[in-house]
Structures are given as structure tokens and as C-alpha cells.
């Protein structure tokens, strides 16, 4: 069992390494993708500077909370897209029958697929996330908690993407549903929970779990509610398990399109 896990990690690591090396062939494009993503993320801070010039707090968040919210959002987005970019294209892959290439490999289909491509600009998001942490107040414990919660958030984000992407096993035009769900996570992640009604909050802690990915970690870091980390970890494990089960169940319904493709 341990050898199987070890081998899978090794294969995923090589897949990531070679995908990244492929992206680095054109160094100008590689660097401009990273630098411009940092600038791109930074521009949205202006929105909050304007809002805080009008009021002292928005939905219970001051500038410190916004910095952490923004940092976590960028870091979660960055980690999930850097290592598991393909998870966000799952429904399209299923619809076009391109999953065939992963079925014939003697490794786990889901893990092999989601680690098959990288997003270079996501490196810029991760760098930006840590810049936000630095502006919030850098300490070793903050760095540790921030990194842990980012990984937990990214795990939930990828799991949600797999769950919605797997709908394509049952529904033929579900790619739009999956991309809308991913977009909704991004939209809500950038706004404090205090501005929403209780009904919306229920949605944000369940089917669009931005509350668990972002709002709860903001509370952990800014208010020191470290016990909530356990709840975050349990949620991440549950979402992972659910995503894996749904994908495996759907995979039984998958039928090849006999599409001939080569993976280089």
C-alpha cells in the first residue's frame, strides 16, 4: 500500500516537474506571466482602499482582515491552479472523451489527470499571497498557519471543482455549471461574509464552501481561534473523500469517444 502511494507521489511529482519545465521554454512569457499576475492581484486592493475611505469597516472587516482575506484567496487559487490545473477542466475532458489517455495508465486515474498540467501565472498568485501576509504582520506562527490553511483551502477548492466537473458523467452540458461554480467561489472569496444574509451564509458554508476556505481561516488568523483549524482539516478530508467517491462513481458511466490524442 505504502509503495503504491509512494509511486503515485513520484509520478505526480515528475508530471508536475516536466509540465513546469515545458512552460519555462519561453522565459519571457514565463516571467511576464508571474510578474503581471502579481500586479493584477495588487490592483484589486485599490477597491478596498476606496471603500475604506468611505467607511471604517465593511461587513465586520477592516483593512487587516481584508489583507488576510485577499492573501488567502490568492494563495488558495495559486496552489490549486499550480498543482492541479486540470481539475478545472474536468467536465470538458469527460465530454470530449480525452480521459482515455489516463485510463490506460497503471496509476490512479483522478490523481494522474488533475496533476497533468500547471498554470504558471499561479506562481504569481502564491507570491502575492505571501506579500499580503507580510503586510498583515509576519511571524513564524502566522506563516505556518497561513500556509496550512492555504493548503486546506486549495484541497477543498480542487475537491469542489472535481465534484462539479464530475457532473459531466451524467449531464452532457455541465461544463458551464462547473465553471460557474468555480467563478462563484472566486467572487464570494473577495467579499466579507458580514455583508450577506444568513440564508446566503448557509450556502457559503455548504455547496459553495467559501466560508470554510476563507472566512473561517480569516477568523483563525486575526482572532486566534486556532481550534477552528481542526474543523477546517476535517472539512477538507470530507470534501476530498466526497470528490473521489463521486468521480469513481461517475467513471463507471464513462465511455470512450475513441479519440486519438498524444500526450507529450
Amino acid at each position, binding site marked *: 500500500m505504502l509503495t503504491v502511494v509512494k509511486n503515485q507521489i513520484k509520478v505526480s511529482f515528475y508530471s508536475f516537474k516536466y509540465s513546469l519545465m515545458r512552460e519555462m521554454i519561453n522565459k519571457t512569457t514565463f516571467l511576464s*506571466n508571474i510578474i503581471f499576475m502579481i500586479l493584477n492581484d495588487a490592483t484589486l486592493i*485599490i477597491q478596498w482602499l*476606496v471603500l475604506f475611505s468611505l467607511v471604517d469597516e465593511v461587513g465586520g472587516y477592516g483593512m487587516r482582515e481584508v489583507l488576510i482575506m485577499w492573501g488567502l484567496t490568492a494563495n488558495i487559487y495559486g496552489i490549486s491552479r499550480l498543482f492541479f490545473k486540470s481539475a478545472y477542466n474536468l467536465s470538458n475532458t469527460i465530454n470530449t472523451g480525452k480521459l482515455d489517455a489516463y485510463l490506460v495508465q497503471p496509476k490512479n486515474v483522478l490523481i494522474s489527470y488533475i496533476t497533468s498540467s500547471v498554470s504558471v*501565472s499561479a506562481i504569481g498568485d502564491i507570491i502575492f499571497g505571501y506579500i499580503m501576509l507580510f503586510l498583515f504582520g509576519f511571524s513564524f506562527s502566522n506563516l505556518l498557519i497561513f500556509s496550512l490553511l492555504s493548503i486546506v483551502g486549495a484541497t477543498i477548492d480542487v475537491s469542489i471543482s472535481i465534484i462539479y466537473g464530475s457532473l459531466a458523467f451524467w449531464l452532457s452540458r455541465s461544463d458551464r455549471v462547473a465553471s460557474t461554480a468555480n467563478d462563484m467561489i472566486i467572487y464570494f472569496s473577495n467579499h466579507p461574509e458580514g455583508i450577506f444574509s444568513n440564508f446566503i451564509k448557509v450556502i457559503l458554508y455548504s455547496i459553495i464552501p467559501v466560508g470554510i476556505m476563507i472566512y473561517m481561516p480569516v477568523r483563525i488568523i486575526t482572532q486566534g481561534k486556532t481550534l477552528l483549524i481542526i474543523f477546517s482539516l476535517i472539512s477538507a478530508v470530507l470534501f476530498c473523500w466526497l470528490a473521489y467517491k463521486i468521480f469513481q462513481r461517475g467513471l463507471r458511466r464513462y465511455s470512450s469517444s475513441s479519440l486519438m490524442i498524444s500526450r507529450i
Partner: protein
Amino acid sequence: MRKYYYIFKANIMSNLQYIFNIMISFINYFILIFIYLNVWQYIYSDPSKLIYHYSVQQMVWYVIITEMLWFATSGRILCQNISNDVRSGNIAYNMNKPYSYIGYVLANHLGEILVSGLLYGTAGLIMGLILLGGIPTLSLAYIPFILIVIIFSVIINTMLITVVGLISFWIEDSSPFYWLYSKLLLVFGVFFPIEFFPKYLQGFLQYSPVYVTIYGPAKLFVDFSYVNLFKIISVQTLYLVIAYLGCQYMYERGVRKLNVNGG
């Protein structure tokens, strides 16, 4: 001009086949408006409050119009298409055709966004009427002027995005430049009117793409005045010329660097 008209028309016909897809993308539009409705209702704790002469109703209408322009223009797709044309060498097929590549790109994209623009416009108006009850200080007589400004704004934005897309001749992938361009429009125009920014920035923003592509149409919609109309159309005319010359310059310079492998 007839050939560009046919390209434009062909794309409208093609897009009419995908109305369902466009309507699904309304969900994102609705959600963003819903989020901004919550943000502004929180900030305007007292509904009679005015911030920089804008009421809460005007602010939400402003965002409805700016987001509508933002979604309908689909700039990311245009920029990606130009980048792909250059990277894949597909542009070579357009170069030897009896039309200008710039004209082709503009006609193609404007045809593509016309249907979605009309649908987003209708959806935005319905949503605004349901959420806010009415349109502030808008008379029917102003609508033709606002429509002209909207058409100009979409054409200018399309041309400016084309300029950004043509950067692909030099660095293959122009997407990072588009991110920056789009975020500047988003932050300085879509979220807030330019009156919300410090005075020194306002002077600059009044002559920036934000003013002609996003702020202008939305400002006229929520607070129409003939003085503003004249000013916005003047700056838009100037931008039409600058953006067109920019497209031509970038294309002519870039195409000299093009190196396509046969196959």
C-alpha cells in the same frame, strides 16, 4: 466595407445558435450584481445618504451598466483569439485574404458580442427594475444618446484590446497585458465612478480608456447631462482615432517579425 459587414453578419447568425450558453453565463453576472448590491446596501446604511452625489440606487445602477459592458465585451476571448492566431501561425491565412486583419478581427468580434450585448442589456434592465424599482433621472429622450455612447465605448474597447492582443507578435502570449488592462478598467471604472478617486487621479482618469469605455455610458445612464454627453463623445472620438492608429501601427510593426513554419 461590404466584406466586413458579411463577416459581422455571419458571426451574429452563428451566435444566435448558442443563446442557451450565453444565458447560462448570466448567472455570473447576476451573482456579481447581487454581491455589489449587498456591498452598497451595507455602505449606505441610511438609504437617503449621498456619497459623492450618488444615491444607493444610482450606485447599484452604475454597477449594473458597467458590469453589463464588461461581460458583453468578452475581451479575454478576443485577446486569446489574437494570441492564438499569432502563436499557431493561423494569422498567415488571414494575411493573404483580400481584407485587412484588423478589420476582420473587429467585424468578427463585434458580430460575436452583439447578441450577448443585447441579452445582457435586457437582463440588466430587468434585474435593476426588480431590485431597485426604477431608473433614476432617466428620460426616454436620453436613450438614443446613451446608446450611441455605448456603441462607441464597445468599439473603442474592442480596438484597445486588439492593440493589447497584437503584443503577441513580440512575446507570444499577451494575456498578462490583458489582465492588467482589464483590471485597471475594473478597479477604476467598473466598481466605482471616477468621482470616488482623489482629485489628482480624476484628472488623469478623465482622459483614460476607463472614461470612454466604462464610466461614460454608465454615468450618462445614472446622471444624464448634455455637458457630460458632449465631453464624453469628444473624448471618445479622439480615442477612436488613437485606437485605430494604434491597431494599424502594432499590426504593421508586428507582422514584420512574424515567422511561420509551413506544414
